[in-house]
């Protein structure tokens, strides 16, 4: 009974102590919809936005970043993926909007990552008074290298997801189109014979009266 609130307070203190924030979201964007996210950013903090359309339509989306004074920081139309880095000029709420307004029927899946502030260091750094030992420095280096690997993996995962979904769609399309065409061939060839027979038959029909 006592443990739960204890753990919770630790967690709260931990989270509030973090300067940098990073959030990754993958969300659905229905046709002709706009999806906006808001983030409060302190003055002079650097922030970066990364996004990619995973499925739907031409894999494009309109993206806009708006500052607290309604100034447009970044605006792109029909982008498949991009990243943008900016430094906040004012403290305030920044707005990131993804718009699918130009598309009336394609439903999209969009990934976005918003990083605010510098990269989060390993815990305990900063409280350190003495010079870092060699071991600690190399741990730090490994940490940033691993972070880069994770970033690359995310990229790879998204590209793979996009291609895989496209391939699955293609597979499906090939299947249905082949079904359709087989049916069409059968119908057309039967109809051809019928029509030809009608031309030459004695009975007055619609065709030879014309």
């Amino acid at each position, binding site marked *: 009974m006592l443990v739960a609130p204890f*753990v*919770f307070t*630790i*967690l*709260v*203190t*931990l*989270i*509030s102590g973090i300067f940098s*924030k*990073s*959030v*990754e*979201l*993958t*969300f*659905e964007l229905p046709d002709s919809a706009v*999806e*906006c*996210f*808001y*983030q409060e950013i302190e003055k002079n903090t650097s922030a970066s936005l990364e996004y990619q359309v995973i499925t739907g339509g031409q894999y494009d989306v309109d993206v806009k970043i708006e500052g607290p004074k309604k100034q447009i920081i970044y605006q792109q139309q029909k982008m498949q993926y991009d990243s943008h880095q900016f430094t906040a000029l004012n403290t305030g709420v920044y707005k990131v909007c993804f718009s699918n307004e130009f598309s009336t029927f394609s439903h999209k*899946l969009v990934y976005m990552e*918003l990083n605010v502030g510098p990269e989060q260091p*390993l*815990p*305990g750094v900063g409280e*350190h008074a003495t010079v870092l030992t060699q*071991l*600690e420095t190399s*741990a*730090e280096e*490994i*940490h940033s290298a*691993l*972070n880069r*690997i*994770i970033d690359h*993996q995310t990229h*790879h*995962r998204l590209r*793979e*997801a996009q*291609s*895989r979904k496209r*391939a*699955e769609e*293609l*597979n499906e399309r*090939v299947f249905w189109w*082949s079904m359709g065409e*087989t049916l069409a*061939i*059968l119908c057309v*060839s039967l109809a*051809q*014979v019928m029509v030809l*027979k009608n031309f*030459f*038959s004695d009975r007055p029909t619609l065709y030879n009266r014309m």
Partner: protein
Amino acid sequence: MSDVTSALYFHIAEGERKCFIEEIPDDTTVIVNYKVELYDPRSGGFMPSTPGIGMHVEVRDPNDKIVLSRVYSSEGMYSFTSTTPGEHVICMYSNSTSWFSGSQLRVHLDIQVGEHAVDYASVAKKDKLTELQLRIRQLLDQVHQITKEQSYQRQREERFRQTSESTNQRVLWWSLMQTAVLVGIGYWQMRHLKSFFEAKKLV
């Protein structure tokens, strides 16, 4: 509670369902922190706390099975650990009450996946680790996460390849089949018409 409030937020209408997708390997923990604020028409802002508003949370695994389905209060944290790799869908919607309906909700949300979800401060306290040990622990966790992701990547690559090969096979067989169908139909048409003309004494 400035933690979740400083996180990313978005607006939803009451009762509106909002879903996020997390594609994760198996045995990965996801922690979601959230806070809901209700729009206050009198002040034109958002009420800092809204008792009475609950959030319904639903988490589905890649096989569309419900992993978690519960009603939480207007603010809180929940977590789940994946058992099957793939796309996990996290959906949230308010348990709307009639007199509130139609108004806007502001949802602060923070989703942390894998080693980001580990709380190292409490790990250090619990296991009595030195700073260096803690760092090594974190590095190890990162490596584990990368390994898991990589093995999941291999699985997905396999599925991708299977799809591509299936498409390839389908295209090949279908083109052969269609040629056969065309030849067959053409032959049947000729024979049928020939016998028809002969019967009609046209040739």
